[in-house]
């Protein structure tokens, strides 16, 4: 590449990155500011004080929330992987009546707005006595049309001869699923895992609805708890909360970006 082109490309890249990253950078920056600095509309803090972080932990039990968020996200991740892969397996490796119709039905659930189903869902969870527990926070999300779709796309690339070889050898279907399909699809499962972890970590309205106790709450609610209606929010502390909430997912994303991109693309393209 010609040098001039290279330089201009880098310039554009840096400018774009600056724009894209500004909000995140801004949040970081404010999280180190004192109240006065925030109101002054400064861009950079005068000192890197961790006071806001200390305070945010004192204000709300963020540690408990972090643990809850981790636990629920992890459980949902495992649940989604399991349920979706079982379904995708059936869709790809089995022939039975109603299969295509069922698949269409599954996909159609992607079009149902979650908010529209929230009231009845809440009633269901409540009737089951699942409020304030990890079950209530996780089980409703175990079935994921997108995940089934993604894994189905990947399973379809697995040579069907592997399945036939197992049939000839007399290996049971479930064993084949467990011992062959799952290990072979590791990269897709990781993709879906990251995806579902991220989405669940970021959930707000549902945890707010089904948890009434602090011991069951997640970080996104903690974030809301930092803002007040009655007296002016302390933006420095709020942003410190924001940073704490986004840090784990950003790190996870940075670590898994390549895999995620590869896997998602596989699902996207027939």
């Amino acid at each position, binding site marked *: 590449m010609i040098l001039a082109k290279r330089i201009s490309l880098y310039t554009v890249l840096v400018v774009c990155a600056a724009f894209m990253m500004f909000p995140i950078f801004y949040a970081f920056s404010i999280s180190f500011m004192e109240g006065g600095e925030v109101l002054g509309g400064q861009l950079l803090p005068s000192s890197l004080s961790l006071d806001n972080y200390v305070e945010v932990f004192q204000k709300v039990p963020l540690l408990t929330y972090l643990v809850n968020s981790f636990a629920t996200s992890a459980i949902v991740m495992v649940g989604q992987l399991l349920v979706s892969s079982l379904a995708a397996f059936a869709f790809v490796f089995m022939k039975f009546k109603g299969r295509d119709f069922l698949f269409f039905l599954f996909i159609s659930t992607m079009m149902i707005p979650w908010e529209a189903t929230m009231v009845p869902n809440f009633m269901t969870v409540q009737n089951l006595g699942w409020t304030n527990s990890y079950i209530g926070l996780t089980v409703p999300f175990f079935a994921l049309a997108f995940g089934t779709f993604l894994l189905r796309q990947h399973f379809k690339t697995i040579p069907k001869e*592997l399945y036939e070889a197992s*049939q000839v050898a007399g290996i049971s279907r479930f064993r084949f699923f467990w011992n062959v399909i799952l290990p*072979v699809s590791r990269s897709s499962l990781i993709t879906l895992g990251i995806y579902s972890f991220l989405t669940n970590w970021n959930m707000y309205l549902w945890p707010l609805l089904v948890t009434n106790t602090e011991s069951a709450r997640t970080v996104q609610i903690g974030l809301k708890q930092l803002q007040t209606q009655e007296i002016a929010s302390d933006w420095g502390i709020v942003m410190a909360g924001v940073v704490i909430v986004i840090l784990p997912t950003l790190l996870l994303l940075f670590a898994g970006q390549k895999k995620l991109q590869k896997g998602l693309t596989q699902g996207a393209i027939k």
Partner: protein
Amino acid sequence: MTHVELAGLKKSYDGKKNVINQVDLQLQQGEFFVLVGPSGCGKSTILRMIAGLEQISGGDLFVNGKRMNDAPPNKRDLSMVFQNYALYPHLNVEQNITFGLHTKKISREEQKRRCLEAADMLGLSDYLKRKPRELSGGQRQRVALARAIVTQSPLCLMDEPLSNLDAKLRTRMRSEIRQIQRKLGITMIYVTHDQTEAMTMADRMMILHDGESMQIGKPLDIYNHPANTFVATFIGSPAMNVMEADVSPNGIKLSPHCILSNPMKGNLKTANKNVQIGIRPEHILFSAPEQADAVAEIVNTEVLGTETLLTFTLDNTKEQWIARWNGQWQFSVGDRIPVRFDLDTIHLFSKDNGRILWAANDGQPKQAAREVLR
């Protein structure tokens, strides 16, 4: 002893068109049987019906005299090697070889023993801990083979197992597979679209075309006595020249100026005026001008080193003939050379249905053995 029998086997995927139509076949114990035919003719379908991977739409499958149409694959006591080997990418060679043996209630030690034995036989002992992706194509092929061997099933099915390998390796694997099959005495059904593979490996073979059996027999019998033009052109490379010809009691007219003397001695009804003549490229010979049957006009020369392929026409007709001569021959396009047709090897086919009508070497093959070349 008859091991496997297909009786009027039929298959239709859509319930309308038959992809396999009325195939009959009896395989003997220990036989190496090759199913050969062009792509899409139904070879894999037959194999998969035998394996139980595909429902049989009509007719019957017998294994050791028992009807097996509806038995699940693992109840048929057979092993299978797939075209792409179907190795489990996450398991190492050893695990791949023994995968599924537990279902046969074989102890761990016995599994290990059989695995080592097979690995040894196939020269895989050093690779037992490797994953498939760390193996070369030929090694993978051998792992797939080993996996079939350890099951000690008396029947083994192979679906184009060599088609992914390069030419050199293919040649070697051909004889390896043949040797192992002989050693273990198993019955083998082997699918390929490569006629060289079929010719060199088969005890007997079936030529399949559009789901119908064209001919069953020993490779050389088929080569020497093709039942129809399809078989004649499919087996042998370059393919047999099959051209229209007028047959009259006086002779066979290939082109306005090329009339061969009729070798049939009244065998053929004169009604069959318009037939197809078949001559293999190696039976078109260079000739002294005075003995020549015709003058060939060279269209193309391909000197392969050992041999030379000549494409030529006769008397400005459009039909292109191919001759194959040993050695290196240098001709230019447009050269006119005298050629002679070896009348002892010609075949005549019906123009309507391609069936063989008459062959010069009928009854006994022209045996070239004991004849010293040059």
